[in-house]
């Protein structure tokens, strides 16, 4: 789960990490009130998760209760998109914070390093830029330190990282203290990423977090209901919510752009099914993993979820039963079809593994034939999507 900038900054502030003073607003009137009570040079920032908001016009400036009206009106309700997320996201909240006189911009993050199985600290004196670009063009400019979680944070780590990132010596101690607080937050919040870019050095030599990017581990949220409650509306998707309500995990339904609906069991098999559909010349409409051991009710709801996407023209169900039983899958599918959510002429099913005979018998009693292999099913589902007239 990713947090909006202002949510991240509120966590930073709680952890004692300096941030520019600011307040969120959801209406123009709230924005005016904020500027009336504190008429200082300020920045109005769109609160969206999608990147590139600056370029899209989602960051503007103001100084008082009058000149905040224009930017607030312009940004609230603005749709911000980029190449990776062409549909974009609507800014429902703006964050109004005091402008900071920046002398230099640094980069600082803590993420999870899979190879070493440790948190990894990354810092650079080349902040403010796209860090992936820095990593590509100036890999030496990024200092990395993989911290032993059994040791935890110790201030030498900050000094070492500061030296290796060639940060100005005057701020080493400040930096080390700030990094310690950030590490504490990373751990306590169960984050998988905390990133400050830029981490500003002000003209009077103070470090301040100008931005905040925080991504939390969904699996750890049960320990932090306060953080789970921050889930932003911009990240929710009604079909995904239905999948979660049906007892599936956070990552089990992913909406895609194509027209071939997909249901399978197990993330790996579903990924393989998407690939097979693509290889057969089609475009998957979604990823849906019913998980291991899905019963008829989960299967029925899965069919309903996938087919309520209006783009879906054909449905491909690919089940390799290990702990998932073929008869349960067949039962759920037949129930979904009988309630009129979908018709069997727009359906391809491949059912193999545990209780495949019972499952296939149930299907054929209801006039549904199953295909033998994943590739055969993918080809048939793609052909159906192409010939189907809505």
């Amino acid at each position, binding site marked *: 789960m990713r947090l909006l900038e202002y949510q991240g900054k509120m966590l930073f502030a709680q952890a004692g990490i300096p941030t520019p003073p600011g307040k969120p607003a959801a209406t123009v009137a709230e924005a005016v009130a904020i500027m009336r009570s504190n008429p200082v040079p300020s920045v109005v920032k769109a609160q969206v998760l999608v990147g590139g908001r600056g370029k899209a016009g989602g960051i503007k400036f103001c100084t008082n209760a009058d000149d905040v009206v224009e930017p607030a009106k312009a940004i609230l309700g603005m749709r911000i998109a980029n190449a990776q997320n062409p549909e974009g996201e609507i800014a429902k909240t703006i964050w109004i914070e005091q402008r900071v006189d920046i002398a230099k911009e640094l980069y600082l993050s803590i993420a999870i390093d899979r190879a070493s199985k440790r948190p990894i600290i990354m810092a650079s004196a080349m902040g403010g830029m796209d860090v992936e670009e820095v990593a590509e063009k100036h890999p030496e400019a990024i200092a990395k330190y993989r911290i032993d979680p059994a040791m935890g944070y110790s201030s030498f780590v900050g000094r070492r990282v500061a030296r290796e990132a060639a940060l100005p010596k005057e701020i080493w101690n400040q930096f080390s203290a700030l990094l310690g607080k950030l590490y504490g937050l990373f751990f306590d919040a169960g984050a998988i990423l905390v990133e400050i870019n830029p981490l500003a050095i002000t003209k009077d030599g103070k470090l301040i977090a100008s931005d905040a990017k925080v991504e939390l581990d969904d699996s750890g949220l049960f320990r932090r209901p306060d953080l789970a409650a921050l889930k932003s509306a911009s990240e929710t998707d009604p079909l995904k919510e239905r999948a979660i309500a049906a007892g599936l*995990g956070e990552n089990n339904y992913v909406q895609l752009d194509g027209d071939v609906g997909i249901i399978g069991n197990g993330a*790996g*098999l579903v990924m393989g099914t998407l690939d097979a559909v693509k290889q057969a010349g089609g475009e998957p409409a979604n990823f849906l993993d019913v998980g291991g051991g899905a019963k008829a009710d989960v299967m029925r709801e899965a069919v309903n979820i996938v087919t309520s996407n209006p783009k879906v023209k054909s449905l491909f169900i690919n089940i390799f039963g290990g702990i998932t039983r073929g008869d349960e899958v067949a039962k759920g599918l037949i129930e979904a079809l009988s309630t009129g959510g979908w018709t069997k002429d727009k359906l391809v099913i491949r059912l193999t593994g545990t209780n495949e005979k019972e499952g296939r018998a149930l299907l054929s009693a209801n006039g549904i034939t199953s295909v033998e292999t994943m590739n055969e099913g993918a080809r048939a589902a793609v052909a159906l999507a192409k010939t189907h007239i809505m």
Partner: protein
Amino acid sequence: MSIYLNKDSKVIVQGITGREGLYHANRMRAYGTNMVGGVTPGKGGQTVEDFAVFDGVAEAREKTGANVSVIFVPPPFAADAMLEAADAGVELVICITEGIPVHDVIKAMAVIGAGTRVVGPNCPGVISPGEALAGIMPGHVFAPGRVGLISRSGTATYEIVDHLTRNGIGQSTCVGIGGDPIIGSVFVDCLGAFEADPATDAVVIVGEIGGSDEEDAAEMIEKSKFTKPAVAFIGGRSAPKGKRMGHAGAIISGNSGTPESKVAAFQRVNVPVADSPSDIPALVKRAIR
């Protein structure tokens, strides 16, 4: 012969009185695994469906000589279960549980020493066909033979193994290493074990998007630390950037974890990459020849 698990392995289930734990303990026993009992704190001394239940792993190990534990404990307690098994000296700890907080896993991995091999979490387990099954895999799909398999996914493994078995290619050991970002054993660990196993002639590597385990495996092959024939498959080649595909670890973020990088890494070291699971048997036969 096989790696990690064989007919002499003494296996317990942590979480044996839970629905999943008991169900799979029975399936493992039916497959022929040498099941010696299970653990549920507070329920020691009971017997469930002929499985002796112990209060803790140390006691179970003391009384049964168990050296393999399969964990079905719910996510909030699963890291503790892994640490308990390692603390008791269990040699192979297989964690099936999905959805363990990643910080819990990081902490556990940081302190579990070299005497314990962890497989998973969020994995289907380990099977040495014809000898033992420690996990949730459907045993009937597998057949004894001389090809090893390592996979980040469960069901993709069944799909691929089904093709292998139907084409007369049996398996020495199949290790489902798991779909989480932080896992106990990665491809290079398993490749090292297969390299040393005289009963394994070739290995199938089933990777997916996200992370750099596949690139690390290719580098190991490049440095001649793994010298047997290998064939690879990469799942999620059609997945868009930035979207997590079911597995917590299956995500392309920025320029890392892309299928292009993984396919290129294997091709550079002459490891053929199958476009589809159905192509794998032919590639294996060619690689062995």
